[in-house]
């Protein structure tokens, strides 16, 4: 699970997600599938064997056993209620779903924040629940001075990433959004442009850093902002580079969603999120917003 998290957060660390304006690129040589854990520039490679990294703890073990068996029980009993533990009528007929909402401190455990401090930068990012325990606040400071390690050229990004769903015994679970076609967010930003990254389950190791992105423009101000982005607008990118061969996002196995800020404006930032939901906009008929035919045309 920890490795999986590191993979997921590794691809968000190594991003310069903006297709039009980029700010965090690591110009390291791309090794296909063998490099495993993220290695920060300038650090020696960690060659300790994996069995040395295990930490035994009785209390944690008991807690883990309780948690996993409880989850297993929920899953077995949930099958009698319906698919994924929800009633069949709801599964078939729902037109909207609130996927993440921030009512209570437990909801923050599903999220992880990261910034370019992992590559040696100086941005800071924190996550907390707002007053009234009803929305979350991502805040911090962005600093785009690149770290002095000789290979990094751009820096200055912060991310709020959701942890992927795990079932009992840390089995990977996916989110199924096939009956929806629009992402609906209720946010209150400070005028900065963010980017939404959705990572889906992939099969080949080359697709490991694939992400579907789109921009999240905030208006700023004291009023809440409802943002509706159809999934047909999300474009494919890998390791922060927008790809030539585009295809619409496959919604059946979504793993994580993340919000990234990398707009090269140094200073404090904040973003409040009320909830993240998906809905089925019946008036939206677009399949995909970008060309699917001749990708690399003859010049």
């Amino acid at each position, binding site marked *: 699970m920890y490795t999986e998290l590191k993979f997921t957060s590794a691809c968000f660390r190594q991003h310069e997600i903006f297709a039009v304006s*980029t*700010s965090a690129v690591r110009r390291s040589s791309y090794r296909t599938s063998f490099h495993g854990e993220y290695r920060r520039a300038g650090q020696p490679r960690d060659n300790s064997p994996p069995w040395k990294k295990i930490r035994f703890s009785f209390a944690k073990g008991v807690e883990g056993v309780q948690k996993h068996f409880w989850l297993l029980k929920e899953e077995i009993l949930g099958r009698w209620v319906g698919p994924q533990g929800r009633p069949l009528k709801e599964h078939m007929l729902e037109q909207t779903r609130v996927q993440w909402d921030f009512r209570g401190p437990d909801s923050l455990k599903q999220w992880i924040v990261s910034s370019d401090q992992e590559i040696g930068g100086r941005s800071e990012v924190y996550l907390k629940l707002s007053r009234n325990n*009803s929305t979350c606040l991502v805040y911090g400071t962005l600093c785009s001075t690149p770290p002095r390690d000789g290979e990094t050229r751009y820096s200055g990004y912060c991310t709020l990433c959701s942890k992927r769903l795990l079932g009992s015994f840390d089995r990977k679970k996916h989110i199924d959004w096939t009956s929806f076609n629009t992402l609906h967010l209720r946010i209150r930003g400070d005028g900065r442009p963010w980017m939404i990254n959705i990572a889906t389950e992939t099969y080949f190791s080359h697709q490991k850093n694939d992400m579907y992105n789109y*921009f999240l423009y905030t208006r700023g101000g004291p009023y809440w902002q409802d943002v509706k982005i159809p999934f047909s607008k999300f474009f494919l990118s890998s390791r922060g580079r927008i790809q030539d061969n585009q295809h619409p996002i496959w919604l059946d196995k979504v793993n994580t969603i993340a919000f990234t800020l990398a707009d090269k404006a140094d200073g404090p930032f904040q973003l409040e999120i009320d909830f993240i939901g998906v809905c089925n906009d019946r008036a939206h008929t677009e399949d995909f917003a970008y060309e699917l035919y001749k990708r690399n045309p003859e010049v």
Partner: protein
Amino acid sequence: MNCARRLARIAIRGFAPYARVTARESAKCLNPYGSGVQTLRAFHVGFGHLKDQPVSRGDEHPGHEGSLVTHDSLFEQAAVEAQTKAMFNRVLEVFVRKDIRRRGHVEFIYAALRKMPEFGVERDISVYNKLLDVFPKEVFVPRNFIQRMFNHYPRQQECAVQLLEQMENYGILPNVETKVLLVQIFGEKSHPMRKYQRLMYWFPKFMHANPYPVPRDLPQDPLDLARLSLTRVAADPDACVTVYQMPYTDVSETGADVSLPYIVGIQSLEQRSLLAKHDASRPVFVEGPFPLWLRKTCVHYYVLRAEPVPPEEKVQEPVDPERSFFYPLELNLDLERDLGDDDSFDVDEVEEGPIFAMCMASRGDQATLAKWIAGLQQTNPMLSRVPTLFRLESAPREIQRAGESEQVEPGLEDEPPHRQAMKQ
């Protein structure tokens, strides 16, 4: 082989000015097989045979034999005089004129890309085109399938790709001159050409993606900037901006500086009606400063709001049927909506108090904001009867949530930020 070398020497020495001029001219006219250039091409298949022939460098530093002179130093010397576009262009021209073969052009272009922000030309497409012009033309165009296969002149291609990437970073769209230059320098099937195609495909798609666009050139006048940002956050076309106080700096008789900050406020009709309906016994709060980012500038605004009314005290006013004659404003039909017809989200609405007005001021102290309240009282007489509390923070913080205590607690309002949870 030797006679070819001697011919090369004679040709380049003798025809050097001619060759330079014709190279330029043929670059300008779009004929790739101009007559003068053909002679030059026939002699050099790569630069290997010219290594033993030192080119006369009359304009090198005469007193610094053997010292390392980087291309950066050319720019630094120019920067000492003036950091303008004209100076930058002059440095480029000096380099171009110095050597027909453009020795060291890759390093020079990298240095120029690094120095562009200092000269203030990083957003100028003509400067990028001029920089691309430094590449010698037609030398790097692959001439057969083997050269096309094997990444012909990889360093130069990488350098051009980095130039286009800097253009991408600053959000500058290349123009047709860039394309013509790239075709002349690298040919059509090259990495820089592909990068150019990608820029030309994706940039127009995302250029107008922002539903709340910020103008590239923000107004310099703080009043205009305040007006722009307040109309942006008000989210109401009916909102009207009022300038309560103009900025004023003067030296009074005693010699002390008297400066009055500007105060610009905004209030819409709906906010005015909400304030008129507000209960006089409940106080209103002036909160701030809250940050608002417009591209790279951050401005701060203040908000006049009230606490949300608790549900037991909420009075549901009956809707006046005469407000709309075309359709009924409320329907009391006894219909049950199935799951398949329900488009609302199953989440509680966040309880927040009404916002009555917003303002921006250059100084955020209580005296200035009290002047704002006094100005608001002229259009909202209700405000003079309502107690106003000030909740001002020295540093900007998150927008207030409902259910706050009524005392000003600047120390307790923000918890000390915990370390970012990288290892959750």
